């Protein structure tokens, strides 16, 4: 048993690339669901908007990297939010849920269609669009950094990821202490009450959808930059629900909830992955129970078990407060 590898991998999951992009996506969901009460089951499409915004700008349209950032972080998510929000935000919460889940599947299926190969690269996706990003990399590509966890290029992605994540946390923290955040929370509690006090609930919901979507786009963009590729398969529905798991684990409507949730989710995923592999390789795990090819599935089963236990013993999430949860029943 190589305990060093187990600890190192778990720690990498805790702070590494997947942690960064799922935290960002979950921060967006927290804005949507935790603070405003919007049910977004298509965060993957906002993530895809970030990834494809950048990659299409650079590869398909031949624009420079900076225009790619603008397109991916601002313009694509903004348009998406408007397209999905304008028809649904005046209606009950369920309609947005339906539209978001449909939109995320539509985007993925359209993006991989062979007839759009020239634009989206179809199922192979687009590659090599973030060279400009790595041009600024101050780290040595050959060396390992941060307790040997990341090689130079990864370190650069992760470092910028941490910085962007901190900025997003700061934005959420500040806005949620402001009158703007107060209106969002009021809308979550009771939209009509907010309206009766002169608040334009529709517009505030739209702002929340746009801003949360932009956080999601940042997450998707990091995923694309980290792997230098934007592929439809990276934005399947599971991705949305991973972000949801991170949010629920950590606790909705808490600023740090999504981050803690994403860290724990990927920490546990990596930990169980390496642990199970080592157990199998070293013969501690009887063949009858599982073999090496099943490790991937078993770790998700364990996450599922963990979520069930969480729902039973700590439904408010790790950072949530029980008192607040109890108010729902009154």
């Amino acid at each position: 048993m190589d305990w060093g590898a187990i600890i190192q991998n778990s720690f990498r999951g805790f702070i590494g690339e997947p942690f960064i992009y799922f935290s960002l996506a979950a921060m967006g969901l927290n804005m949507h669901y935790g603070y405003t009460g919007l049910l977004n089951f298509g965060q993957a499409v906002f993530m895809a908007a970030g990834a494809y915004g950048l990659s299409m700008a650079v590869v398909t349209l031949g624009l420079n990297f900076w225009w790619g950032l603008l397109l991916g972080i601002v313009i694509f998510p903004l348009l998406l939010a408007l397209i999905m929000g304008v028809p649904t935000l005046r209606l009950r919460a369920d309609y947005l849920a339906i539209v978001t889940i449909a939109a995320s599947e539509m985007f993925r299926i359209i993006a991989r269609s062979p007839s759009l190969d020239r634009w989206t690269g179809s199922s192979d996706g687009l590659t090599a669009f973030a060279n400009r990003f790595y041009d600024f990399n101050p780290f040595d590509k050959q060396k390992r950094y941060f307790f040997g966890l990341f090689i130079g290029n990864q370190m650069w992605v992760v470092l910028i990821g941490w910085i962007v994540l901190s900025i997003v946390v700061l934005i959420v923290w500040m806005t949620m202490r402001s009158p703007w955040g107060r209106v969002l929370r009021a809308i979550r509690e009771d939209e009509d009450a907010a309206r009766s006090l002169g608040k334009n609930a529709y517009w505030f919901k739209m702002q929340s959808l746009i801003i949360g979507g932009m956080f999601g786009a940042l997450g998707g963009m990091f995923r694309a930059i980290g792997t230098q590729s934007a592929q439809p398969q990276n934005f399947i529905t599971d991705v949305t629900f991973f972000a949801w798991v991170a949010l629920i684990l950590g606790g909705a409507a808490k600023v740090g909830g999504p981050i803690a949730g994403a860290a724990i989710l990927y920490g546990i995923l990596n930990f169980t992955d390496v642990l199970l592999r080592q157990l199998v390789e070293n013969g501690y795990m009887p063949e009858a129970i599982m073999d090496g090819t099943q490790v991937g599935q078993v770790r998700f089963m364990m996450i599922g078990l963990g979520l069930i236990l969480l729902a039973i013993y700590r439904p408010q999430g790790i950072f949530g407060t029980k008192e607040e949860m109890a108010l729902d029943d009154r």
Partner: protein
Amino acid sequence: MTAEPSTAQELFDGVPYEPGAAKNDPILVADNVRRAFGGLVAVDVEHLEVQLGAITALIGPNGAGTTTFCNLLTNFDEPDTGDRLFEGNDLLGVSAYKVANLGMVRTFQLTKSLSKMTVIDNMRLGGTEQAGESFFRALLPFLWRRQEAEITQRADALLERFKLSHMRDEFAGTLSGGQRKLLEMARALMVRPNMVMLDEPMAGVNPALKQSLLDHVTGLRDEGMTVLFVEHDMDMVQEISDWVVVMAEGRIIAEGPPESIASNQAVVDAYLGSHHDSALDLEAD
């Protein structure tokens, strides 16, 4: 404690006791307001004027359409046809939140306290034209901190008046039903309305709290606000209203000062015709 004498009766000098009577100084005028749900005509009001600076009660047996009419007047529901003028502003196509900003604020039959927000945050929410309600300015606290302090001060004064100060930092969800009614009324005042519309302010309130609620409602009028309230509690109607409008089956069937209503034949028919067991004690006098 006895009822305070009504002070706004003289506003109705010369107004005939009949449905759709023209008032001396109307703040709100509704014309041919009609709303049908499928085949059921819930509201069909030919004409109604609400007197400025008075307490008007809107009563009616269950299903008379009072709450629907309330929703139509505040644009929480759109009428099929009809015009509504509030202080001369046509309300056609105006969003509900804009109606509130025009100065007509409503409360709800089922109290809408924002459970997972503190009492003081419930109050602060009512402040209008808050600079910090813009996303970008929200990131720059120095732009709204002073306004926030001013709003908080006003909120605290109102909480004091409505005797909710001790609950200031508790979640609104922990308040009792009566306290929530008080909070909702206090919160509505944060908007600084010219007119408040209370939908069944007494529903589910214990008798001890009732008297203080009544005092608060008359207090609103004494401050110059116009009050329109929907209520089934006849004691409250008799005690504090200056003018009573009676609805039945979506129409206005009678209007007049509270004394005149109890003896009105149309009202007696409306209540006793379909509700023999009504708590309304119409034949006492």
